[in-house]
């Protein structure tokens, strides 16, 4: 009796050895409780040990296993084979990033951009420990909590056509995280983040396609963060132009 199988068409790329990625087909046993990551692990363990890809927690919290599954950015640990079977599944490296090897992309651009928004609490004067903790009401927490859920998986960058077209664009996650800290009542660093967020390659390059929020596995809604950042940046701009003597 033949067991069910499923075919994965996986992009392969050897750095410096070929001009572009090629698709290699692997037919593996089908299990209806497997995810694409399980399939990749099976391929690497049983069929082709040369396949390279990133993964870690296999439960959707580390953000390592983002790839294009049938042209859609997905966490491979959250993409179930049963949602595609019996069709073939195409697995490619995350879009809009340079490919290092096979399914591994160079994420340094995102890391640099993330650092540039200073994603940490900035205080004008640090409160000494002896003065106790920073207190925050539930409402103050609500103001930014959603945006803390980002796991830096970069699916939003793969979905964002602006990032694909204009590589200098700050991008959804970085802006959302800048916004997260700006909205945190403990933070006093809004001014320091302004030059980066308010730059042309910052919030203003976004054309609100909205696909970033569609693919986000943690419902961060970076599109909302970006548009709200635009409103804040515009308010500041109009204030500084119309009331240049005003202090903030």
């Amino acid at each position: 009796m033949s067991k069910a199988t499923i075919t994965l068409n996986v992009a392969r790329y050897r750095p410096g050895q070929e001009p572009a990625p090629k698709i290699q087909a692997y037919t593996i046993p089908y299990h209806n409780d497997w995810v694409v990551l399980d399939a990749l692990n099976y391929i690497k363990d049983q069929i082709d040990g040369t396949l390279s890809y990133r993964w870690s927690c296999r439960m959707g919290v580390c953000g390592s296993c983002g790839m294009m599954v049938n042209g859609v950015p997905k966490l491979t640990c959250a993409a179930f084979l049963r949602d595609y079977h019996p069709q073939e599944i195409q697995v490619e490296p995350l879009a809009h990033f340079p490919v290092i090897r096979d399914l591994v992309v160079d994420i340094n651009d995102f890391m640099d951009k993330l650092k540039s928004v200073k994603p940490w609490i900035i205080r004008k004067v640090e409160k000494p420990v002896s003065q106790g903790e920073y207190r925050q009401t539930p409402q103050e927490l609500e103001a930014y909590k959603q945006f803390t859920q980002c796991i830096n998986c970069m699916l939003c960058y793969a979905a964002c056509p602006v990032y694909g077209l204009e590589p200098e664009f700050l991008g959804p996650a970085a802006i959302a995280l800048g916004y997260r800290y700006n909205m945190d009542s403990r933070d006093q660093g809004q001014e320091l983040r302004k030059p980066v967020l308010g730059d042309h390659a910052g919030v203003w390059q976004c054309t609100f396609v909205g696909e970033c929020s569609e693919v986000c596995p943690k419902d961060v809604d970076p599109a909302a963060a970006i548009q709200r950042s635009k409103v804040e940046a515009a308010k500041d701009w109009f204030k500084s132009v119309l009331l240049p003597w005003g202090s903030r």
Partner: protein
Amino acid sequence: MTPGKTSEPLWWGLFSAGGVVAAFLVPIHIVLFGFAVPFGWIADSGALYHHWPVKIYLFVLIALPLYHWAHRFYFTLNDMRLGLPRKPLAILCYGSAIVGTVATAWVLSVL
């Protein structure tokens, strides 16, 4: 922060205002002036448009959405990768909106 370091907020603000005006007011005006008046469903002698409150309303209705178009279209043409040079395109789009604003003001003022 130095204002005018980028003028984006200005164009975005105008884009937003134009978008709101377009969203709430344009559909009914297309019905009125694209169908009702041309087909004579409602008789329109044009006398209404000589009044200043109406002129101001019409100015807002026509001018603001032009900035909505300019900002959106500039970004769209860039996104479509048609190879059009950026600076001339920006001048064409935002410039057209400004020209359109002046034209609207002039047409309405001599009405």
